[in-house]
């Protein structure tokens, strides 16, 4: 499937490999995590309230729509985070294993 974003220039940069939902994704040095994911993917996360996938909105750190998770469960704002080699990202919210109440 085609990515949502289209790279128009500056494609000669060094490559960085990250993993998104377990699959390898090639990012370029200087990308934001958001661009790295959306250059080959269609969304970043799902709305908490059931109205579908989200792919970010403002790209300037104001709307907080583009949050993704590390596999360790930490949140990252994809539009202001830079991908680092070996980064492992999840586009779905980890379950609340810390609060497994009956």
């Amino acid at each position, binding site marked *: 499937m085609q990515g949502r*974003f289209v790279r128009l220039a500056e*494609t000669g940069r060094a490559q960085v490999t990250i993993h998104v939902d377990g699959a390898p994704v090639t990012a370029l040095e200087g990308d934001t995590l958001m661009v790295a994911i959306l250059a080959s993917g269609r969304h970043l996360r799902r*709305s908490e309230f059931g109205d579908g996938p989200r792919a*970010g*909105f*403002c*790209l300037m750190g104001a*709307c*907080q729509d583009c949050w993704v998770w590390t596999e360790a469960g930490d949140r990252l704002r994809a539009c202001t985070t830079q991908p680092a080699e070996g980064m492992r990202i999840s586009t779905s919210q980890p379950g609340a294993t810390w609060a497994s109440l009956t």
Partner: protein
Amino acid sequence: MGQPDVIIIGAGPAGVRAAEALVGAGLRPTIIDEGRRAGGQIYRRQPENFRRPYGELYGTEAGRAKALHDGFDALAGRVDYRPETLVWNIADRHVWTAAGGRQQALPFDALLLCTGATDRLMPVKGWDLAGTYSLGGAQVALKAQACAIGRRVAFVGTGPLLYLVAAQYVKAGAGVAAVLDTSPFAARVAALPKLLAQPGVLRDGVALTLALKRAGVALHAGVEPLEVLGDADAGVTGLRFRDGRGRERAIGADAVALGYHLRPETQLADLARCAFAFEPKTRQWLPERDGDGRSSVPGVYLAGDGARILGARSAEATGRLAALAVLADLGLPVDAGELADLRRQVAGYARFAEGLAEAFPWPAAQAGKLPDETVLCRCENVTAGDLRRTVREAGAKEANRAKAFSRVGMGRCQGRYCGQAAAEVVAAEAGVPVEQVGRLRGQAPVKPLPIAIEEDAP
């Protein structure tokens, strides 16, 4: 007594020019900025390893962008520059910052808020589908990342930025589906006398329109956006709108760039306890300031688009002007001739901005027409119908009350993108003027603050 502590928040045109003036007077200001690199949004810098030249990035504004960046670089070593730093609260003459997961409070004698602006948004049904971006966001994608937000992008909204970004997309080789402007063409003609306050800018604007036409991009004025088409899996697939002649039409697109001019980022002015006033021309609440940028709170100054949307050129002037006000209030000498010249410049920019507000008016009436099922608050998934119900059934006719009952504006973005439209929805439903609905109060921490934030030992 040591040097006064002067803090500037924001390293865009206003913040950089303010810093230059303060450094020129022998001070060493602190510049706090959320960005990774100085420059702000309009003159946003690309990452260090990108190679595109200034002309390609900033077009007619290349010279100004370069001058601003060079000006900032020349300040190195003479300012305390703190990039990637959030100011999350202001209290007791301190700004409270978070950077890299650590908290630090910095004292100030004078505080200059140069917080800039974000897109002003009027929701449209379907704008919560993946692939709808703010117009400013569409520009950031291109300028800072050399990307287009889609393969066929529809530009929807109003204001000069709509044409600028669409033209930049065309020039960069991106696919542009159409430019759909809600403002009628006649409004632009009527605003001409005021727009002539900046003939160069006006000429550049006309040139952009012509460039778009030459590229074969469909331009529509006086449209009413009806719906972003698509579905949850695919995201955006098109757009339905009513054209200037009242005909309903649809176009295909895989992305929408949506923006209705700008709104100032005023949360920090709120937390600094500045007074606000309603500006009828733009139907926005703005922090009160005198002609030079003094807020209602002694020691707190406002400059740039964060105070009032006058554009990047004006931000350079108001930044410097506010810095001169700081110097004067600290008892330091200020050149009266420069002061008068800057005030004159700002008056010209203000006249032009008034013309823009008339040429590209905020389509307030659209809020009342949004179908009930339209998502108004993207963070909390609150629809226009939900909000109207709280007005009708719970009597919420004030912005913060409507928020308390419906959750509109209660999410992560703190109402930045839904607050002004929500106020118009409430006003329309309650049948009261929008100024009577009031405004959402700014609340700490301005942007999300990690619970795990580390503190330095006291």
